[in-house]
C-alpha cells in the first residue's frame, strides 16, 4: 500500500483532478467491491455499496485527515456502509435464512468451489462485526495493527474478535461437513 501516493492522489482530487480520482478508483475499486461482496453476499448490493463508498469519499475529500492512512479510511467506510446496508434493509435475518439451506451434506465432496461457497455461506451466519475482521484479515490482507486502525478498536480486541470469528466459522463448517 503506497500510502504517500494515496495521499497525493487525494490532494489532487480535492483540487478537482479527475485523473487522480481515476487512479484511486483503479487502486481501490476491486478491494472495496470484494469487501462489500463478502459482507453482503450479493454482487448487486456490493455494487451499490461500492458506489456509495466512492460517493462518500468525494463528498468528504476535504474531511480526510492525511495523518491516517487512506486505505484504513476507505475500508472503514466500506465496512460501515455494508453494515448499514444490512441494517437499513433489515436483511440480517433474511440473509441468514437465505444461506441456511446452502449447506452441503457430509457425503458431498468438498471441492474448492464448494468449500468457497460453503465458506461464504458460513460467513453470513456470523455477526457483521466478526465478518468484518475476517474480511479485513483474509480478503484485504490487513495486519492486526491495520485492522485495529480500520475498526478503531485495540489490537487485543482484534485478536480476540478474530479468534472468536474463526471458531464460529469452524463450528459452522464442521456442522455442514465442510471442514
Amino acid at each position, binding site marked *: 500500500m503506497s500510502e504517500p501516493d494515496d495521499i497525493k492522489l487525494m490532494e489532487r482530487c480535492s483540487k478537482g483532478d479527475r485523473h487522480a480520482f481515476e487512479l484511486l478508483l483503479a487502486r481501490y475499486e476491486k478491494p472495496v467491491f470484494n469487501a462489500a461482496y463478502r459482507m453482503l453476499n450479493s454482487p448487486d448490493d456490493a455494487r451499490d455499496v461500492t458506489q456509495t463508498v466512492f460517493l462518500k469519499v468525494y463528498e468528504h475529500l476535504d474531511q480526510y485527515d492525511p495523518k491516517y492512512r487512506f486505505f484504513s479510511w476507505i475500508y472503514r467506510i466500506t465496512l460501515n456502509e455494508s453494515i448499514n446496508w444490512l441494517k437499513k434493509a433489515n436483511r440480517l435475518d433474511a440473509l441468514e435464512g437465505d444461506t441456511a439451506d446452502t449447506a452441503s451434506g457430509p457425503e458431498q465432496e468438498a471441492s474448492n468451489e464448494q468449500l468457497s461457497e460453503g*465458506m461464504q455461506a458460513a460467513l453470513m451466519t456470523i455477526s457483521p462485526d466478526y465478518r468484518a475482521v475476517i474480511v479485513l484479515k*483474509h*480478503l484485504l490482507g490487513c495486519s492486526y495493527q491495520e485492522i485495529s486502525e480500520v475498526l478503531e478498536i485495540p489490537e487485543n480486541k482484534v485478536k480476540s474478535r478474530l479468534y472468536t470469528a474463526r471458531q464460529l*466459522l469452524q463450528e459452522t463448517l464442521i456442522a455442514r461437513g465442510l471442514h
Partner: protein
Amino acid sequence: MTIDPKYFELIQADIDSEIDDVGKTELENFLAESEEGRAVYEELETLCRSLDSMPSVDPPQHLRHVLLNQAPIKAPPQPEPGFLERIFSGPALGYVGVFAAGVALTLALVDSGQISQGAFDEVTGLVGTIADTKFSAPEHGSISIDESEVAGTVTLRSQGPLLIVDFDLSARQPVEIVAGYSDKSIWFNGFAQLESSGTSIASETGAVTLKMDGKRRYAVYLNNPRMRSATVDLQFMADNQVIHEAQLSFPEAD
C-alpha cells in the same frame, strides 16, 4: 487436557505471521509436547488457508464508468479562449467543434417549438448546451452499452416531429459513434450537450457522426416531419474497429 488460552493466542499469532521470537519459541515447546495443541494448530491453519483461498471477485465491467460518472469533482475553470479562437479551432474534415455558446437548448426550448425547421446537411444549426438532463419527452427505447472502451446508455425520445437521441456515455478512450437513419425524409436538426467541449459532430445525409472521450451527456435532434416509424442504427467504434452495434426504433405516431 485443557489448553491454556495463551497458547490459543500464540497459535493464532503464528498462523497470522504476527508472533515474536519469544512467543515462537514458547509455542514450539508447547506443540512439541501437546498432541491436542498440534491438532488445534492444524485445524486453525486449515481454516485460515481456506479463507485465504476464497476467490477475489471482479466488479462489473461498467462499475468503473458509473463511479467516474457520479464523481462530483469539478475541474478548476480553464481560461476562456477568445471568440475567434473558438470559431476557428474546430477540427478538420467537417467536424464542428461544439462550444457552449450560451444557446441554452433545453427541453423547455424544444417544448416551446422554437426549433428551426430548416434542413441541414452541414452542422450550422442548433448547437448548444443542455440545461436540464431530465427529459420529459416520451421514451421509445433505450440501449445499454457495456464495453471496456465505452459504457452507458443511449435513449430515443420524441417530442412532436422531433426525435431526440439522448447519449449518456463514458468512454475510456476516443470513441466514434455513427447514428444512421435510412429514411431520407429525416434530417439532422441540432445538437446539444451538457456544458463541456469534448464532443465533436459531423452530419451528412442519413447519418450523424460523433466523436467523444471521457464522460459525456449529449443529445442529437432529428426532424421527422411526417412522424413516421424510423430506426436509428448506432455503431460504436474505437481504434477504427466496430466495438458495438445497436438499433433504436421509433414507432409510427398515431
